[in-house]
């Protein structure tokens, strides 16, 4: 089953890379990415997220008494990686992915603080983000294209809502493997200090500890290249993320990330969602060789043609219902 699933997604990716529709429909940035999700999630649905604890006495535990988070988990909610504020997308996009209109938008508001559900950008940063929304429609250089579509490491927290993940736990480490671009994080939980300044990483530098039954991961030492979603949501090297992972029951994982970056945002803000356990027995990740197969030159060519024809336009979800 796993292999069938994986082979079919590779075929889907290959088909899309080659198809003319991919070139024509440059409106739809996440075609490759979301088809991959679509295949993976085939027979599952997202449980609505909740911030209320549903702590169960059946919480599985490791030999040292901490909650046992091991196993495979569906990443965060559908469409979140397209926009953590709006989800995705429009009827054309949904039809291309064989989805009904009920799969537009987000299942639940992802940004829970502030209550507006919007990222609290400083005014100058709002302008940069708007520029990203123009450039993504008609890209003329690589940095106009979502880093996800260029196979760069997605960074933290985006990795957690872009495809499935796998958690492994030992006495002094948590390891998270992500299927998308075979990314990983090694998170020491032995109390060692963060890296010193001057080393900046796509995925940041993670240190974990337990607060009761909640795994708290402090992430620093970021570089400023990843985006938080396809809508060009961005941050600076000053960002710090505090993640909180907690089992609600044996098959539901609550995730929260508080984002702080005084250079870009007006205040701390928080996103929250739940992840469902993948219960298929014998499940294995496939090798997701993204960089080895990607090409973006057709999108750039189409973008240049559009810009030359005076068709520069902003990306919106106006058609979204």
């Amino acid at each position, binding site marked *: 089953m796993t292999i069938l699933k994986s082979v079919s997604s590779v075929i889907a990716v290959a088909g899309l890379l080659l198809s003319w529709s991919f070139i024509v429909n440059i409106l739809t940035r996440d075609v490759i990415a979301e088809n991959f999700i679509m295949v993976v999630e085939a027979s599952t649905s997202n449980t609505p997220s909740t911030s209320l604890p549903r702590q169960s006495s059946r919480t599985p535990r490791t030999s040292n008494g901490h909650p046992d988070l091991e196993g495979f988990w569906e990443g965060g909610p559908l469409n979140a990686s397209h926009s953590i504020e709006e989800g995705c997308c429009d009827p054309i996009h949904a039809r291309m992915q064989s989805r009904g209109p009920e799969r537009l938008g987000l299942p639940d508001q992802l940004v829970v603080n502030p209550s507006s559900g919007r990222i609290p950008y400083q005014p100058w940063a709002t302008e940069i983000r708007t520029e990203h929304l123009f450039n993504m429609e008609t890209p003329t250089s690589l940095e106009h294209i979502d880093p996800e579509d260029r196979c760069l490491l997605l960074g933290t927290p985006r990795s957690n809502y872009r495809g499935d993940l796998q958690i492994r736990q030992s006495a002094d480490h948590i390891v998270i493997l992500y299927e998308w671009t075979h990314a*990983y994080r*090694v998170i020491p939980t032995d109390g060692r200090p963060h890296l010193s300044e001057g080393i900046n990483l796509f995925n940041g530098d993670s240190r974990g500890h337990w607060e009761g039954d909640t795994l708290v991961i402090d992430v620093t030492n970021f570089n400023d290249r990843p985006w938080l979603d396809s809508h060009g949501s961005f941050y600076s090297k000053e960002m710090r993320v505090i993640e909180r992972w907690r089992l609600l029951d044996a098959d539901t994982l609550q995730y929260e990330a508080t984002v702080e970056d005084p250079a870009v945002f007006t205040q701390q803000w928080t996103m929250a969602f739940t992840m469902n356990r993948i219960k298929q027995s014998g499940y*294995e990740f496939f090798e997701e060789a993204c960089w080895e197969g990607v090409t973006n030159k057709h999108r750039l060519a189409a973008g240049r043609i559009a810009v030359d024809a005076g068709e520069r336009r902003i990306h919106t979800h106006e058609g979204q219902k």
Partner: protein
Amino acid sequence: MNFSSIRSATVITVLVLLSLPINVHVEQETKPPYVPNQTVDGEPDLQGIWQAMNTAAWNIQNHSARHEVPAGQGVVDGNEIPYQPWAVKQKTVNFETRSTADPEVNCYMPGVPRITYMPHPFQILQFSNRILILYEYVHVTRTIYMDGSPHPDGHIDFWMGDSRGHWEGNTLVVDVIHFNDRTWFDRAGNFHSDALHIVERYTPTSPNHLQYEVTIEDPKVFTRPWKMSMPLYRRQEPEIQLLEYECYAYAEQELADGK
């Protein structure tokens, strides 16, 4: 030669023959094999951050120095790679065109065993029923399934192959198949086909050393199986951790132009 000298030679020969096993026995007694610590699951503990320290990344065979290439003693047993005649020619072409043809130039996943002796650290982590090897170089990961499960049906064109392992004493033995034909063994153009089958052996020889041996089999390219071996060294820095080497992200524009 007279009779007495024949007799002396015979006596000496017998003495030598008799003494051989005794010497071997004595050596074994004075140097018992290293017994590694065990993990919580009772397996030999190979965990930690390791790195090769040799010149195999440039050339797995003996080679003289060149510009930006240190001279090196090879890691191939007997130094000979048993290429079929057509493959000797292909290897020569690969060498001559290596500045563009080497998959490393495009930052692709380097395959196995090449990833092991790239000049970057990697981390071994052991969990129940699986061992993870995480590599700093382009965030490559390998899961070595230790639950006795077979390779999936194929053929599958993986860059890093499909790894299934088991323990033989304190040695981790990993069987790897399902490769594509797009990776090389080194920067000198040594290569294989998609019929590649390798068996890796990781044996702890001290708290800070693993002996790494890998048998290479590929009936499309070689006339017989052959072997590489090298020590792997534990990184000693107390604060050592894997960082990132996102090869393509640092040269994205020029690499993307070629695709």
